[in-house]
């Protein structure tokens, strides 16, 4: 306890200004009016002021203006009662309990500090004060005082207040521009009017809320985690936090949002193309690892739908960052002709415990205990695949293959990545025959394969493939009959298990241009776990 305490300048009940430190010892007592222990203490502060005030700056520091006046009146105080109703001094001095009593040297360095009421602490304090002031101790009726009493919570640590004070403090983590709204301006309407929302209401990112969100990470708020296309804007953790507040995230979701944005803003993922395409694509996020449980994510009934805060707001926060920081606004750089509901949010956990196979992140080289996000540039909405009849893996995988062939266009083969979400009942049917994921993928390739002659552009359906795409100019009948699977390679069929336990359905998120010329899925470990 050798460093000087933060300086301050506050007015007393007579509007006289008191500065600290002022070149001599000081006794600072932080109090609030509705605290019984503070009221118990007030006569002692007054006595210390009367006995030692000539040599020591004795002040009470009260936490609300009306309460301060009431204390002065109730106890007949002449000791300076400083107005800290803004609570900035209480915050700067780390006051968590009132009364907090601090004795300092002339330099402002503290020599004694205690909180609440303890008779022996006070008796020792009076002895110290007398020694410093070279004065006699006043007569105190110590027998009238209890041995000890707990203090009360300081106003500066009340919920909501602490975050405001943190945001306003000079060492605040917040550096972004702040916008002041007019008194009569509705903050929710303001967010709409300024084009900051996705069309649904957002929570206004007040400095208090952003400061509270930043408690979700230990990383520096000003760390630039990515450059966000299309505007190529630097993305700080603070901006991620502001947009996460808007989306409705809890602070513990923040590390997930950060990891997703780091994955999305890579060369491989090509978020510029994903957002700018006239086709429909959006980042589809899969979450794996124990964090799914810690955040209370829904991986069961309605997993791809609405109703769960973590699922909904993590994906939404990512989209709001892409919009507000990256500049991907529909009608501007975001050019999708149609879009889809996944453009609002698309974040889903895998139900690893219900899957007969290795979860997605383990397939990709992570350990089961790792927390991992994987992002795919896919269609912004799932398509339901119905098969309530198949009872063998072969038959069901055949159905899945036929359904997957319809992605984009049935005649476009040599297709890239999709995300196949298999429900527990479908997974059970496949697992009963002991099939691996590799067998499932191979069967999908087999069931979706078509002869080249059926894939060519024709008058019946203009879209399709060209002979040049197969390296052919004048094909033989045999070459025309060559069967081409839907996917360039079986690994393009990404598979997770999730959903309700009743219902023989699966879903697929169709692809976009995948591979080095388009978007490639990216996995990233979540480094910080709440």
């Amino acid at each position, binding site marked *: 306890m050798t460093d000087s305490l933060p300086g301050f300048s506050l007015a007393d009940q007579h509007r006289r200004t008191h500065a600290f430190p002022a070149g001599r010892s000081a006794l600072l007592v932080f109090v609030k009016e509705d605290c019984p222990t503070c009221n118990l203490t007030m006569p002692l502060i007054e006595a210390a002021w009367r006995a030692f005030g000539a040599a020591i700056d004795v002040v009470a520091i009260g936490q609300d203006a009306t309460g301060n006046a009431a204390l002065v009146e109730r106890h007949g105080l002449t000791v300076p009662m400083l107005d800290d109703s803004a609570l900035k001094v209480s915050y700067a001095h780390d006051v968590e309990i009132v009364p907090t009593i601090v004795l300092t040297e002339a330099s402002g360095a503290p020599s004694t500090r205690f909180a609440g009421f303890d008779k022996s602490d006070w008796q020792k304090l009076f002895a110290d004060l007398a020694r410093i002031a070279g004065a006699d101790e006043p007569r105190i009726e110590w027998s009238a005082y209890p041995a000890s009493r707990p203090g009360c919570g300081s106003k500066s640590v009340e919920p909501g207040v602490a975050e405001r004070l943190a945001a306003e403090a000079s060492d605040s983590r917040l550096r*972004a521009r702040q*916008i002041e709204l007019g008194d009569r*301006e509705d903050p929710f309407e303001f967010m709409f009017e300024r084009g900051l929302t996705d069309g649904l209401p957002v929570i206004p*990112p007040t400095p208090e809320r952003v400061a509270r969100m930043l408690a979700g990470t230990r990383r520096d708020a000003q760390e630039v985690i990515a450059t966000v296309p299309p505007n190529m*804007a630097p993305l700080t953790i603070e901006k991620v936090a*502001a947009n996460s507040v*808007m989306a409705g995230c809890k602070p513990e979701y923040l590390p997930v949002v950060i990891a997703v944005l780091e994955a999305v803003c890579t060369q491989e993922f090509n978020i*510029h193309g994903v957002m700018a395409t006239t086709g429909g694509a959006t980042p589809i996020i899969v979450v794996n690892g124990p964090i799914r449980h810690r955040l209370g994510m829904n991986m069961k009934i309605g997993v791809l739908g609405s109703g769960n805060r973590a699922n909904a707001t993590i994906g939404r926060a990512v989209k709001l960052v892409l919009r507000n920081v990256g500049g991907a606004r529909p009608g501007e750089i975001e050019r999708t002709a149609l879009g889809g509901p996944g453009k609002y949010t698309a974040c889903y956990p895998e139900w690893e415990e219900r899957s007969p196979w290795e979860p997605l992140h383990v397939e990709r080289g992570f350990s089961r205990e790792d927390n991992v996000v994987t992002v795919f540039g896919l269609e912004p909405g799932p398509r339901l695949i119905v098969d309530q009849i198949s009872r063998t893996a072969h038959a069901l995988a055949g159905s899945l293959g036929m359904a997957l062939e319809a992605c984009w266009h049935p005649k476009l083969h040599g297709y890239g990545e999709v995300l196949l979400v298999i429900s527990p009942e479908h997974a059970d049917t496949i697992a009963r025959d002991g099939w691996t994921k590799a067998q499932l993928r191979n069967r999908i390739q087999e069931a979706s394969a078509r002869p080249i002659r059926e894939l060519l552009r024709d008058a019946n359906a203009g879209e399709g493939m060209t002979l040049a795409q197969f390296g052919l100019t004048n094909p033989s009948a045999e070459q025309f009959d060559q069967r081409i699977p839907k996917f360039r390679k079986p690994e393009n069929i990404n598979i997770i298990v999730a959903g309700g336990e009743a219902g023989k359905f699966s879903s697929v998120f169709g692809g976009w241009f995948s591979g080095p010329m*388009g978007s490639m899925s990216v996995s990233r470990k979540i480094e910080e776990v709440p």
Partner: protein
Amino acid sequence: MTRIVDPTDERTPLRRALAVRPDRIGGAVALLDIAKPRGDVFLDRVEQRLAQRLPGVTLKRYRKPTFAKPAPEDLLRSIAADNGFVIEALAD
């Protein structure tokens, strides 16, 4: 009174003036295909018509590797260095 933390990139978009419109077309004209289907069909026709109307002008064909990503810097630089004009076939 409410304050909010600005959630945007806080940057004002640059406003660039349009290039001065030249009196005549001379030198080289770049024809850029972004690699969308049938962009080449459009540019073939444009090239044919321009060659008839502007016999003194050199027409140069360029192609992006993929329409799904921004053009590579090298391609942009070489188009800018060697041509006075660009016609881009967006196809969509």
